[in-house]
């Protein structure tokens, strides 16, 4: 059984159907890249997996736990298996970098401060920000903030990391440093689902690429297949437009 199994996921906003029957299996160590035009439903899909949006149909199973939006316990359990990184970072502006990373382990997992502070420092080192622990988010560049956000998510020891366009809000020269951290994570075997417009990253790091459009998965396959030899006309058109 896959680490994560999504079956016929549906989502409507008012009368608009945003996701029509999306199914996806994610194996341990998979790096799944989701690509597609704006408005395709990519963010909504990710958000349904971690229950930031309540799905309207289908099922989400994470490591054998069924995500049931009506059952708070199952929601918390599933959320605990996942970390999420947002396009707009969403760091806590009133806390230092170190506190941002430590707050959830301390409050949610009740881990001792001295233990978690050690771990938080290691995580900051991992994302290349050892010297920024005492800074506030507003004192950091966008790329640095996003790396803190990754460290903050990792501090909860997730098995799966969700990234929703993690580099889209960044100046072009800062994109690389975030992608580098994500690649390192992937190389260490982290299971990841990444919504991205960085085709280089999708091609190089992902082992599965999903092309979404208008709430449907148009095509999925290995990066080689999707980028070199797509079988759907829409995939080809999209890639031509974005890569030119």
């Amino acid at each position: 059984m896959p680490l994560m199994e999504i079956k016929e996921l549906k989502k409507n906003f008012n009368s608009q159907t945003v996701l029509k029957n999306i199914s996806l299996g994610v194996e341990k160590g998979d790096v799944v890249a989701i690509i597609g035009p704006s408005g395709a439903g990519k963010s909504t899909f990710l958000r349904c997996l971690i229950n930031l949006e309540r799905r309207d149909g289908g099922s989400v199973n994470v490591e054998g736990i069924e995500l049931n939006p009506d059952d708070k316990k199952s929601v918390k359990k599933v959320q605990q298996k996942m970390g999420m990184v947002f396009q707009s970072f969403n760091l806590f502006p009133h806390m230092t970098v170190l506190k941002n990373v430590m707050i959830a382990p301390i409050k949610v997992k009740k881990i001792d401060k001295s233990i978690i502070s050690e771990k938080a420092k290691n995580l900051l080192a991992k994302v290349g920000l050892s010297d920024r622990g005492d800074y506030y988010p507003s004192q950091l560049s966008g790329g640095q903030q996003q790396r803190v956000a990754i460290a903050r998510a990792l501090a909860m020891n997730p098995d799966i990391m969700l990234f929703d366009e993690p580099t889209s809000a960044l100046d072009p020269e800062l994109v690389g440093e975030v992608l580098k951290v994500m690649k390192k994570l992937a190389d260490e075997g982290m299971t990841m689902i990444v919504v991205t417009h960085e085709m280089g990253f999708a091609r190089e790091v992902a082992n599965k690429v999903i092309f979404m459009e208008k709430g449907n998965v148009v095509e999925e396959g290995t990066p080689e297949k999707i980028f070199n030899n797509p079988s759907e006309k829409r995939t080809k058109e999209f890639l031509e437009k974005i890569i030119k």
Partner: protein
Amino acid sequence: MNLQFTLSKLPTMLTASLMTIELTVLSLIFGTILAVIIAFMRISKNKLIKNIARFYLWIFRGTPLILQLFFLYYALPTWGITLSPFAAAVIGLSLNSAAYTAEIVRGGIISIHEGQYEAANVLGMTYRQTMFEIILPQTIRNILPAMGNQFIGMLKDTSLVSTIAMVELMRQAQLVGSATFKYTEVYITAALIYLLLTSVFSYVFSKMESKLSIY
């Protein structure tokens, strides 16, 4: 202006201003606690709770403070509830300032970006943790300037309790004035004390603001 007279009455006036300070501080504490509760009720998804809060705001923002004080002090006894002037003053000022402060707090809470709730949510924080660790600390910083104004308004409003037999700074000035006919001296003295108090308040708030604006 008779300086010697003014100085001779200064201790009495200062003693009375202690009562003004006491009323202000107590009403601030109770009023702010109540305000936070009402603000949360006001943003509650439960219609009944929300409407209770709305009704409260409607009453206390829609009627004069002096009427609210009179009601507590003069009307409640006919219902068998007799309050001392001090109790009526603190309750009236607290209830009234809570209504205004609640709207400031509510504005501060809803101004926090949705992404903050989402980040806290996916990290596994409960509603309480999210509020106390993430939302309220940011709210406090955002609303501090408005709260400063509200608190200074509150300090000046304490003068209205002179009408329900509370002897605070304003009432003391009236008493001394009518006994000596030296109105100029007493009212200028009272004005200076009020100015001193509001200035200290402003200073404390601007200090807090700059301390919180490190981020």
